[in-house]
């Protein structure tokens, strides 16, 4: 089982969720984060005091998947999140050793 973690532009969240639903992935966890990278932030100005904001609002989605659909999931997320402008974000894949559904105690692939 793998954990797919993607940092995306917030307004793409709905598209990504819909795309994942279409391929049958029905669960995910979403976190509001701030990203720092190549994408330029903006400047704020308060009574002449300038303030460069380079932490840009992003959304992190975490999807636990069974290994066999990993590639499809990665592809779908990237497709739905891509705007082709700087700051589209990153996707990370890491290994999961165990998954438990807390309600039932089911584990691993059954728990997804």
């Amino acid at each position: 089982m793998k954990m797919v973690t993607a940092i995306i532009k917030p307004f793409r969240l709905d598209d990504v969720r819909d795309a994942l639903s279409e391929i049958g992935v029905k669960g995910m966890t979403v976190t509001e984060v701030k990203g720092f990278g190549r994408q330029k932030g903006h400047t704020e100005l308060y009574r002449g005091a300038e303030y460069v904001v380079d932490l840009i609002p992003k959304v992190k989605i975490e999807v636990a998947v069974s290994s066999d659909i990993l590639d499809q999931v990665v592809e779908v997320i990237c497709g739905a999140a891509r705007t082709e402008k700087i700051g589209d974000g990153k996707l990370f894949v890491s290994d999961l050793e165990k998954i438990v559904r807390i309600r039932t105690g089911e584990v691993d692939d059954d728990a997804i």
Partner: protein
Amino acid sequence: MGWLKSAAIVLLSLTPSVLWAEDTLDKGDTAWMLTSTVLVLFMTLPGLALFYAGLVRGKNVLTVLMQCFAIACCASLLWVAFGYSLALTDGGSMNKFIGGTADFFLASVTQDSLSGTYPTTVFVMFQMTFAIITPALIIGGFAERTRFSSMLLFSMLWLLFVYVPVCHWVWGGGWLADMGFMDFAGGAVVHINAGVAALVAAIVIGKRRGFPQQAMPPHNLTMTFTGACMLWVGWFGFNAGSALAADGAAGMAMLVTHLGAASGSIAWALVEWIRHGKPSVLGIVTGMVAGLGTITPASGFVGPMGAIIIGLSAGVVCYFATQMIKQRFHIDDSLDVFPVHGVGGLLGTLMTAFFASASLGGMGLAEGQTMGGQFVVQVIGVVATFVYSGVMSYVLLKVSGIAGSLRMDVDEETEGLDIVLHDERGYDL
């Protein structure tokens, strides 16, 4: 506080039995003075408190609210106990400098006492709201780093030793009133006075950790906006209430006050638009406050066109003053009290000399007075207020710091004063 009128009231009060003989209550005036009192209190609570509190970081929001509120409460008692009597009653042989002690604890004020056409209780209350807002204005100078207890001590000492005498000089029949100094609703008494004190306090207490490298953006501009609007509407009580009657003078004061606010806003926003490419909400409301502070001393004396010119000047001058204090002098007057109120009050007090003249659409200078002559008087009043407030504020800050440090520790500042000083947090959304 209608300069001529209140001077007259004070003079008259010396021989009440004779001259007040025909004083009668006017219910229309009373209704308006009651309303004005409500409006000026509303300016501080919640107006100024919200205006200021929105500008600090979220971890210090309650400290600002607390300071405004506690000052309002303590100043009210102090005013009733000593302030009113010392500021606005006859001081006998000392009257040039300070009022009398006979009305300590409002000893002679009854339900039926009149001050002109309305009850003395209302006069006490109306003037109290000015004694509340003036020290509350100062806290913007040292926000986000000052110990509550020392701050409160300083505020009360300042009220008694700075506000009360200056108020007496100008509105209580003191030496500035004698000279014909024109300050309708508090350009010197309130705005210069508070602005200078804030500047001195900002310097004495020192910069916030991280200033000016680190950004300290306002945590809630919608709160600041709300407070600003409350200041605008409340200011009608401040200025039009200072006509002390519901008449044409009040009407004209309201009109010019409004135009000062609108013009100040537009001017500041335009300067921003030209210099930075964008006007801002914080800019436009700051321009409004600058416009209001600046029209205040002039508000019973000038006409609509004078008010527009005064307001526009305020927006431009206070904008550049703000830049200068911050960027040239690196003084951490956190909420820009001096460049907005101090400089605005100064500007308005001086401009009054000209725009009060009937030839420039004003209500007219005192008989026989010229613009030049009046200007000299205005300069004297301004300088006196500057110097007195500056020196005394410095002394009182040192005195207040004796018991405990005025300044919070670095760690406390980092953690946020709401938790450290009050065991509370502003938001838990």
